[in-house]
């Protein structure tokens, strides 16, 4: 099969799409252009609400009851889709244009088997015989590297892992070899190592079949890895587009600059280069300003130029002929204009050890009531959530606990705050063992000295209490103040320090945005002046620029109170940026721990190596070695007998890995690696991430 790479698959010209709701017309996408050639991968980047998914729906001609194309054309293979009949559109859907979705679990029908859901695509598009369709689906599952596809065909979606579900969705999309594949945040709901596998798979398949890809994501690092060209969207319009190289090396639009300022880069850290959040919020569609939509949030805003009339895209010239930007002042604005205003912050002095965990173990007891278990008498099973956890954290230090879902990070956090008690071992806070002390028997002083920030800010604030009440209650309960006037005073000070307006004292949680709620969550945690704060994925539910603002608020609070911060996360680039020490966990056990630079450079534990490789990095100059892990996380009910990582390890040395628990080897004073491979060999491993030399903050072989 020869593929003509010059053929235009999709062409969108001046697309304007609106939703018509009771309040009137809401323009969701304005003046959108896109041209996609065969075999090309184009990315749409932007934060939630900017209209990325709406574009995908428009291409599919699936806009619900309220959406409609107001202006412009979507042409597929040269044919205007608005002139097609319903039946023609149906023929194109699934056969010519297919889609992969953000939540694979939700995208698959829970009550139909995988076989039914896959074969029907062939049956209804080509009239394939059921037997034939079954064979072809099976082959497709092999193409997406699913082990044991025969068994999987008979499974229901809930019986397989998230990564496998997404592979099924991809296989289903590719069954009829479509010309265009739309990927709407295909890896956002997946773990990093799973994400790496899916990304590789999509690239492999698209080059094999010559499929054009339209990637939709908010993750700039991922875009760099998978796309040829990208378009940055803001508030319904494209503000900048061009080749990946051109955009990453020479971004022109202030919003693009802003996005880069929001993501932690590998060559900086929290003290030298604090993140710069974009001020303000995305305007609501009916409140867009005149002229540049980004104007009110832009540092380089200039009256009469930026807010005068509608701004069109202008070519910037240079190496990439098609690099265009929607900014009247792009020639005057430099990327560093916004970045250079950053003032470096003083590192926090770390003090004596505050938290000490020694041989901590947490098992959950499960009662198995199946007939088999009743007959063999093995009714009690243990979920080994945490095994042999050891580490220390000093005052003012940030310790990150890293690992994929199911590795036991959250169990560990629960034990610390007293929602669970240890099975064995000790957890000492300033010398007092609190591991066996459930939260109910903890004194107010102890409770206030150990606080937590949760992942989902929407669920953790009491919806019927105002912001002021929620924070004030903490101050009162922990006995810091009792006079109502003084309590209010303290709350207002806290609101100042989380950079929220003072009148939000009377606001209810539902009146706040996600980022604001998370700030309130931070204020609530710090209200009792805690010695230690545990932050469980505090920014992973937030948009890029909001996450940057929240991260900085969290860092400032930690600085003010010299608090020990336990930062639980799966995002290694954030972890790299803000933590002093890192603990890498896998299946309830610590694989590696050490200072940030120790963990990020050889000797690595093989799992750390794979994790580092899986992190998308939004930096053209960084070289990365690719390691893709096979297989899935084993069940904590039945972990491998030897090293927990042995089933997926690419450096396995032999049977010893399956049979024996690995010894803990010390590469440096407190840099521990649990692995059978001798340290010298691990030391000789090539670094996963290579940074070019920089003038400032050189961390070679980070």
């Amino acid at each position: 099969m020869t593929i003509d790479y010059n053929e235009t698959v999709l062409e969108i010209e001046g697309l304007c799409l609106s939703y018509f709701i009771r309040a009137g017309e809401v323009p969701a996408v304005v003046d959108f252009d896109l041209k996609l050639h065969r075999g090309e991968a184009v990315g749409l980047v932007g934060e939630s609400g900017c209209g990325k998914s709406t574009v995908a729906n428009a291409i599919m001609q699936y806009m619900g009851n309220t959406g409609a194309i107001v202006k412009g054309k979507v042409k597929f293979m040269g044919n205007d889709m608005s002139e097609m009949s319903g039946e023609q559109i149906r023929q194109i859907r699934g056969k010519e244009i297919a889609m992969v979705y953000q939540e694979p679990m939700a995208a698959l029908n829970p009550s139909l088997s995988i076989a039914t859901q896959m074969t029907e695509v062939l049956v209804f598009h080509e009239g394939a015989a059921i037997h034939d369709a079954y064979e072809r689906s099976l082959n497709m599952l092999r193409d997406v590297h699913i082990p044991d596809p025969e068994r999987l065909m008979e499974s229901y979606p809930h019986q397989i892992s998230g990564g496998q579900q997404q592979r099924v969705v991809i296989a289903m999309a590719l069954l009829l070899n479509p010309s265009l594949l739309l990927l709407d945040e295909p890896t956002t709901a997946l773990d990093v190592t799973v994400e790496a596998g899916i990304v590789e798979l999509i690239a492999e398949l698209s080059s094999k079949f010559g499929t054009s890809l339209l990637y939709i994501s908010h993750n700039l690092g991922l875009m760099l890895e998978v796309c040829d060209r990208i378009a940055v969207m803001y508030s319904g319009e494209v503000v900048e587009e061009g080749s990946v190289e051109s955009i990453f090396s020479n971004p022109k639009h202030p919003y693009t600059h802003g996005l880069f300022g929001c993501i932690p880069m590998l060559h900086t850290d929290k003290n030298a280069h604090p993140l710069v959040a974009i001020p303000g919020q995305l305007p609501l569609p009916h409140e867009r300003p005149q002229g540049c939509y980004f104007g009110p949030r832009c540092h380089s805003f200039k009256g009469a130029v930026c807010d005068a009339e509608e701004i069109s895209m202008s070519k910037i010239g240079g190496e990439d002929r098609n690099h265009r930007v929607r900014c009247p002042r792009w020639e005057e604005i430099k990327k560093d204009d916004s970045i250079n205003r950053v003032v470096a912050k003083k590192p926090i002095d770390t003090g004596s050890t505050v938290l000490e965990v020694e041989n901590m173990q947490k098992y959950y007891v499960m009662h198995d009531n199946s007939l088999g278990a009743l007959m063999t008498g093995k009714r009690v099973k243990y979920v080994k959530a945490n095994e042999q956890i050891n580490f220390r954290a000093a005052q003012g230090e940030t310790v990150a606990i890293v690992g994929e879902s199911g590795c036991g990070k959250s169990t560990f956090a629960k034990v610390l705050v007293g929602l669970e008690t240890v099975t064995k071992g000790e957890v000492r806070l300033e010398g007092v063992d609190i591991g066996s002390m459930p939260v109910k028997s903890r004194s107010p002083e102890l409770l206030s000295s150990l606080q937590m920030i949760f992942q989902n800010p929407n669920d953790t604030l009491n919806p019927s209490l105002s912001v002021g009440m929620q924070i004030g209650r903490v101050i009162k309960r922990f006995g810091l103040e009792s006079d109502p006037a003084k309590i209010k005073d303290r709350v207002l000070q806290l609101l100042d320090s989380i950079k929220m307006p003072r009148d939000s004292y009377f606001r209810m949680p539902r009146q706040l945005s996600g980022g604001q709620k998370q700030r309130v969550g931070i204020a609530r945690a710090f209200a009792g002046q805690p010695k230690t704060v545990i932050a469980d994925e505090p920014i992973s539910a937030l948009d890029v620029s909001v996450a940057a603002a929240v991260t900085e608020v969290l860092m400032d609070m930690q600085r003010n109170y010299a608090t020990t911060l336990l930062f639980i996360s799966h995002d290694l680039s954030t972890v790299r940026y803000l933590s002093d020490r890192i603990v890498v966990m896998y299946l309830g056990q610590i694989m590696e721990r050490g200072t940030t630079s120790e963990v990020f450079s050889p000797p690595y534990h093989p799992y750390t190596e794979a994790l580092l490789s899986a992190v998308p990095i939004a930096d053209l100059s960084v070289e990365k070695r690719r390691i893709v892990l096979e297989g899935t996380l084993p069940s904590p009910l039945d972990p491998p007998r030897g090293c927990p990582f042995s089933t997926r390890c690419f450096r396995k040395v032999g049977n010893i890995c399956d049979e024996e628990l690995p010894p803990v080897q010390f590469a440096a004073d407190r840099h521990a690696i649990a692995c059978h491979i001798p340290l010298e060999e691990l030391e000789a491993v090539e670094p996963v991430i290579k940074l070019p030399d920089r003038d400032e903050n050189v961390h070679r072989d980070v």
Partner: protein
Amino acid sequence: MQIPVLVFVLKRIGYMVFTMVAVSLLVFLLLEVNVEGVAVGVLGPYSTEEQRNLWLEANGYFRPAYVRYFEWVSRFFTGDLGHSVRFNVPVADIMWPRLWNTAILGFWAMAIIIPMSLVLGVLAGMKEGSPQDRAVSLLCILTVSVPEFATATFFSAVFVFGLKWLPGISAMTDGFDWVQLILPVAVLVTYDFGYVARMTRASMAEVMTTAYIRTAFLKGLPYRIVISKHALRNALIAPFTVILLQFNWLLNGVIVVEFAFAYKGFGALLLEASLNEDIYLIEACSMVAVFVAVSTQVLADIGYMYLNPRIRFK
């Protein structure tokens, strides 16, 4: 059948037996522990103290309560349900035919309610906010909000006294008669179908907004396939449970309709038994009602398991 499914079914049946035992104890405690009340019920309020004591003595009522409970339960199993004071026949002779009559009434009501409400509910839920949805919703709310006695009166006025098409009494004194069944069934259907249809509509509307329905559309499946294969299966899980709950209602909730049309059914019997303190009849009726309630629950659980693979295969 796979082993886990068998275990599941056995467990459900186990719970059912447990519930029956608990309820029978309760019924026995309420009605028979106070032996004086039993004697008054059987011999009537004008009997003398001495007569009552003699009767109680003769029928073994001075033995301990647990002995009498076990005797009562074992008699139940042999089919001896006692003697109805009100009708002066064995309870079994009056109760089973009455139950059968209600079953006939309930069967025909359900035979219309189920297809009608499912079809209307699915049609409405398919396109939320469309004219067909609004029409169905309005009809359902109207019919549900009119109580049975009002519908019964209204139907009688129109079809019995106005048009003179149907008989106003469904006593079936001359044997079974189809025509006499029409009005009671019509009233039951009118009252109940709206509720089930609303439930189906809500469930269907929810399913239509899910991501997997979008997937089905974007796979290029024809509309009718998306509805029949992807949506219905999931949308019918919730109404299934609701429909099984309607059986309870048909057993005990038909009192109004049976009374209004003088239909000789189970509900009317229960009413009469309670009004006349016919203890053995009350006991038997309660146990039958509980049995129906519990067994429809078991059926609902088992059916739910079959409809929802997330429960079937863990």
